[in-house]
């Protein structure tokens, strides 16, 4: 009985790690699916029971590690409400696509938390991974309806943090973004029982 409990126990830190791992794979997946970087710079990796592609570009890797380590800390402290992966036209800085990853904070398993004297969740890791896999498959499927990016594009990740959050070194405040004539598509959500991740893609609808 006690073994069962320890098996299904997810700490806040572990949950934040799961979220950040999901963000890493999701961002890489979007970069690959939307063709922002050449496909030969991506390497196939087995995760969540499906094959996902991870960029081998050193710059992207560095950027993501910097971003995700800081984000994990913020998620732990409940400072972040949303992360937005924006895809913009390099020539005129127009925002073409925005992938919003909304983070919501949940209470987890109250009884188990009391027992452990620490906030924990009791969701089965396999089930979480199953949910993440469903979202990933949806992300891969978005290519069928998202408009074709025919210009030179780049990406950036905006973190919507609380106002009382300090700005660390290497970070800067950014302008809020808006997509003209935007179309929103809500993808599936998943939850670790401590964090709920909602993925929304909004794109500029071609006239």
């Amino acid at each position, binding site marked *: 009985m006690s073994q069962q409990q320890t098996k299904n126990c997810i700490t806040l830190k572990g949950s934040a790690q799961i979220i950040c791992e999901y963000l890493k794979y999701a961002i890489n997946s979007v970069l690959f699916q939307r063709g922002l970087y050449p496909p030969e710079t991506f390497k196939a990796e087995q995760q969540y029971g499906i094959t996902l592609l991870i960029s081998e570009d050193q710059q992207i890797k560095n950027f993501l590690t910097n971003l995700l380590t800081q984000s994990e800390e913020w998620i732990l402290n409940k400072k972040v*409400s949303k992360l937005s992966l924006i895809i913009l036209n390099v020539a005129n800085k127009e925002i073409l696509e925005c992938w919003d990853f909304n983070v919501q904070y949940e209470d987890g398993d109250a009884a188990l938390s009391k027992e452990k004297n620490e906030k924990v969740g009791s969701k089965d890791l396999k089930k979480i991974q199953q949910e993440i896999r469903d979202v990933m498959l949806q992300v891969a499927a978005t290519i069928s309806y998202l408009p074709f990016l025919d210009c030179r594009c780049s*990406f950036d990740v905006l973190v919507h943090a609380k106002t009382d959050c300090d700005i660390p070194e290497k970070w800067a405040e950014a302008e809020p973004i808006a997509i003209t004539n935007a179309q929103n598509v809500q993808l599936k959500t998943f939850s670790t029982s401590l964090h709920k991740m909602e993925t929304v893609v909004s794109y500029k609808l071609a006239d």
Partner: protein
Amino acid sequence: MAKEGDMSLFNDVLEPFRRVINTDLPKDKLSASAKLNFSDSNQSIKEGSTTLFSSIKRKSGLESPTPEKRIRTESGSNSNGPPPSPWEAKRLKIDLIAAKAQITKLEARVNHQHTIRKEMQILFEEEKASLIEQHKHDERALSDMEDRLKLIRRRELEIKEEYNTAIKEHKEAKLKWEKDRSDLQKQIAELKDKLLESDVSSKDQLSEMKRDMDELLQALEGAQQEVQILKKEVSKQTSRAEQCSTLRSQLEKQTFELQQITNKLKELEYEKDSYKDWQQQVKTAQKRLTNMAELEKEVGRLRATERSLRDSVSNKLLLEEQVHILTTKVEALQPVQQELHDAKVKIASLESTLEEWKNVARTHGIENARSLSSALDSALSSQLTAVAGCSQAQSQSAQLTEEIATVKFERDKATTKLNDLQTVRKNQESLIHRLQKRLLLVTRERDSYRQQLDCYEKELTVSISGAGEAAGGAALLAARVEQLEKALQSYRDLLALHDHEPNTKALELARAEASKYREEAEAAKREVAKLRAQRDQLQMHFEKLAAPTKILHLADNPAAAAQKQMQLELESAQEEIKKLKAALREGGSSAGDDALRAQLENSRIKLQRMKEEFTSSAQEYRDVCYMLLGYKIDRTGHKNYRISNMYAESSDEYLTFTLSDDGIEMVHTDYSTTLGDLVELHLHQNRSIPVFLSALTMELFTRITMQQTQC
């Protein structure tokens, strides 16, 4: 009374006994006859019963002191016997009771014995059955055993026979072995003799060997002595060798000294030779000294000549300078001369032109230059006015073109309208067509009605002619006809109305509606765009209000990097453009261009040379192939090769081959059909093209040589 009662009781007690005895006896007899084994137990039972009986008798005897007494008493006085005493009665009762108990005991025992017997009987019967079975089994076994015995007996007989034969053989073998033994003993004896002999001989040999050994030992001792002597000698020799080496070193030293001395000697000789040379030189110097005076004279002469030569040289230099100045002057004058020439030519030409001008002026009636200038002024002014007119005209033309453009635009509009109208007209035409058709139908109807009317009228006339009573009916009909015609007229009017007015009206209405709708749509579109923008703004605002967040991002993000790179690229491109533009302004042919051209020229020449080299080497290769292998190979097309032999009689004799994926194949030609044998032998059987070709060469060669020899 008591006695009688006792007696009856006694009888009662005895009764079962008797019954038992009566019933048991025949049963026992039966069982005895059936089973002999149980006779003993039955007998014992019988004995038991008899003893019982006797005891009872005894008891009865006790009742009366003796049977004889009793008999006596009975015989004495049957009715008046002494009455038994109460003690006796008591005792009798006790005995009786004991007897009864014994009887019951015995009865139980008998019953028990009976049951045992029955059980035993059952057991014995079972055993009997089993024994009978065993007996049968034993009988069977016995018969088997008998059979086996017979077999064994037969075998025994056979074995006995074999034994006899074996014994015989054994005896024979024994005889043989005895003979062999005797032979072997004889051999042993012989061998022993031989052994003795050999022992003797070996002893002799041994003694000989010993002698040899002794001799050898003696020789060895001698040799050792010799060795010692030789060692001594060796030591002596070594000492000598040492002496020799010392001597040699001395000798070497001496030879070295000798060489030194000889070197010194050579040096001395060389010095001597040099001294001799010096002596000769001294002699010659003395001779020269004697010639000195003559030489001095000569020197004076030569100095004079030198002075004269120097003077002449200075003169020459002066002259050269003068010549140089003159040449420069000449060079300076030459262009002047040329100019002079040119000027002369020009003057001539100018004079001629002036003449021409003058002539022209004369023709125009102008004699003076002033009049000419005035005429020119007037001409210029006229030109100016013309130019002004021209500009005006151009502006006008521009205006006109603009007007034309506007007109064209209008025309396009008009054409579009026209097209619309044409489509409308077409519709109308189709309508008209339909209406005409209808009209036709109506007219036909009307005609048919008229015909009918005519018919009626005729009928009426007939009827009137037939019977004058139908006049009223005819009037009715006429009225009807009139009514119908009126209706027709009204229809026609309706048709006409339909034809024109409503159509045009409807069209105009429709057009107005369409334009209205279009305007509305455009307005709606504008509104939608406005609303969308507003919605977005509001959404943004709402988001801001909903969650007071600030947006952070990594300063070093890929988008910024990409933008920077883009900026850099743009700048570099602009700079390059500037550079190129500057280069263009400076002039097309820069140094780099020339270099490139030169390179191009070089490469062209190289290419040309390479081509030449290639063609020559290819030709050489072909020639060598032809000379060595006797075949000229021509490529007649893609993967097609034609080869002709060196010894071929005519140029028509050639073979063709094609290169296919799995080798090379020969294609049939007129010539190849004449080589059936060779083809069959070398291509179909040997499957080797080289052999075929060599064979062909051989054949052609022999044929030619044969012809030559025949010639």
